[in-house]
């Protein structure tokens, strides 16, 4: 007797539902379940075995974790993303991470717009025990970025972390402002910024794709951070993102404390989605 065994349609539907409710999106979920159907062999039609195979498929779709090394000094990281996604908090965590690697770190308050944004970042800089650069509220964010990189070069900082104001990607003028920040950094230091991290809120749905697309076009995103994965959201949009963009996922945010930052681990991420 040859041929593929019939898989219980309900079992497959249940697995597809898990992907959909994890924010994979309906099209990506369907594609992954089709891939699972193609892989199934005799004796594979048990739910547990199917789950194992599904995990393998998902892990294969994800990039390996890869925190880039600080290979040039000063190493300039710009953090971007939509309002409230967790940029400022993530910078606090990153500053702490690099400080613990014995790097000299400068944190720059590039959000000159939102109420108390500068104060908020200053608290984080103090907690991470790193240096802080700011100007007055309402100043041009590009000038803060300029001063930060200039200061980093002259004072020989290892790492510069530049915060930016939250902005919705649909706002053309705000995306133009971000382009200018990147351009000004390039002028001061030709190969900078060395990283542009797009911070994605883990509770986001399919809009995450538009964020990666448009922030990518206007600021040259080099890597992703997914925050708030300590809640019930699964962040499955990363699979939809992987389909269209080859971007590494550097970090995940797992809470509001300075230590709540973990390097992205594809296996742990997939386990969290399916278990």
């Amino acid at each position, binding site marked *: 007797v040859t041929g593929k065994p019939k898989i219980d349609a309900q079992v497959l539907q249940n697995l597809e539902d898990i992907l959909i409710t994890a924010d994979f999106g309906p099209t990506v979920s369907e594609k992954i379940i089709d891939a699972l159907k193609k892989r199934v062999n005799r004796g594979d039609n048990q739910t547990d075995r199917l789950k194992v195979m599904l995990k393998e498929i998902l892990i294969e779709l994800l990039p390996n974790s890869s925190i880039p090394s600080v290979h040039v000094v000063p190493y300039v990281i710009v953090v971007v993303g939509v*309002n409230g996604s967790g940029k400022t908090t993530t910078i606090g965590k990153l500053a702490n991470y690099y400080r613990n690697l014995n790097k000299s770190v400068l944190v720059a308050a590039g959000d000159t717009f939102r109420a108390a944004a500068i104060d908020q970042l200053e608290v984080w800089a103090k907690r991470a025990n790193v240096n802080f650069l700011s100007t007055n509220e309402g100043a041009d964010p590009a000038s803060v970025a300029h001063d930060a990189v200039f200061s980093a070069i002259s004072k020989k900082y290892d790492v510069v972390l530049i915060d930016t104001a939250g902005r919705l990607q649909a706002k053309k003028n705000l995306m133009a402002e971000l382009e200018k920040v990147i351009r000004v950094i390039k002028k001061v230091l030709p190969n900078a910024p060395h990283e542009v991290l797009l911070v994605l809120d883990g*509770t986001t749905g399919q809009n995450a794709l538009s964020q990666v697309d448009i922030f990518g076009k206007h600021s040259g995103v080099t890597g992703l951070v997914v925050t708030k994965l300590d809640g019930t959201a699964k962040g499955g949009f990363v699979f939809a993102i992987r389909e269209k963009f080859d971007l590494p996922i550097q970090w995940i945010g797992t809470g509001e404390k300075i230590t709540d930052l973990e390097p992205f681990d594809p296996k742990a991420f997939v386990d969290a989605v399916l278990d």
Partner: protein
Amino acid sequence: QLTNRLESFFKKLKGSGRLTEEQVRETLREVKKILLEADVSLSVVRDFILRIEQKAVGQEVIASVSPGHQIIKIIHDELVVLLGGDYRTLKLSGTPAVVMVCGLQGSGKTTFCAKLALWLKERKRFPLLVAADVYRPAAIEQLVVLGEKISVPVFTGDRKNPLKIAQECIDAARERSSDVVIVDTAGRLAIDNQMMTELEKIKSILSPSDILYVADAMTGQDAVNTASEFAKRINFHGVVLTKMDGDARGGAALSIRHVTGKPLQFIGTGEKVDALEPFHPDRMAKRILG
């Protein structure tokens, strides 16, 4: 967008007497995908599709309209009914009236508190903002700065204990002759038992006439989980959907409304303190359908 997607569909569906089960089901298969892409939660999509099936099958086909377009009209109208329904304005009862604002981290609560204060001030009320988020760095300062911008007083109390701040803010309102108190709380996870218990305690101290759950319009499938947990533990009165000036489809609006039964009352349409509008079900329905 919806009509573009379904145009090819409509060519196949030929009008004749009554909408058949097959015509409706085929259309709904496509609508299911559209709603999921718009971030409506799966369980809500399934309930919604069932309702449409019941309404659409056997309906008289309107002579001048294609069956597909007719089904779309049924869908749009049903969405408007679900999103709207029992409209609720702010109750604002009590002297002073108390509004408590809550939700997940970063959803836009602090900004909304300032927007609501300005809104009420423009309607001849005397609001007092209360900074009960003692956790987030510079959260109190954020509300103080916003209060200064709109010339609304901000009560900060001991800046340490949210329960004490809640206890003292009512007297503070009376001392200043404020007739509405708007209490900003820290963002918190629905599954964080300690923080949800704190919120329950703040609620019992304040006895607010209006508890508003502030949610981000770009929230995905998780909207049902967090909203239902907040509804279960806090029993909020209404919902605010923020960041509606973005391009997120906002399916979370339907998810939250359907799973909690609470009305959608306001939308945030920008970062500025005047960017607040009442919720419009028909506009939201069109946005979700794309």
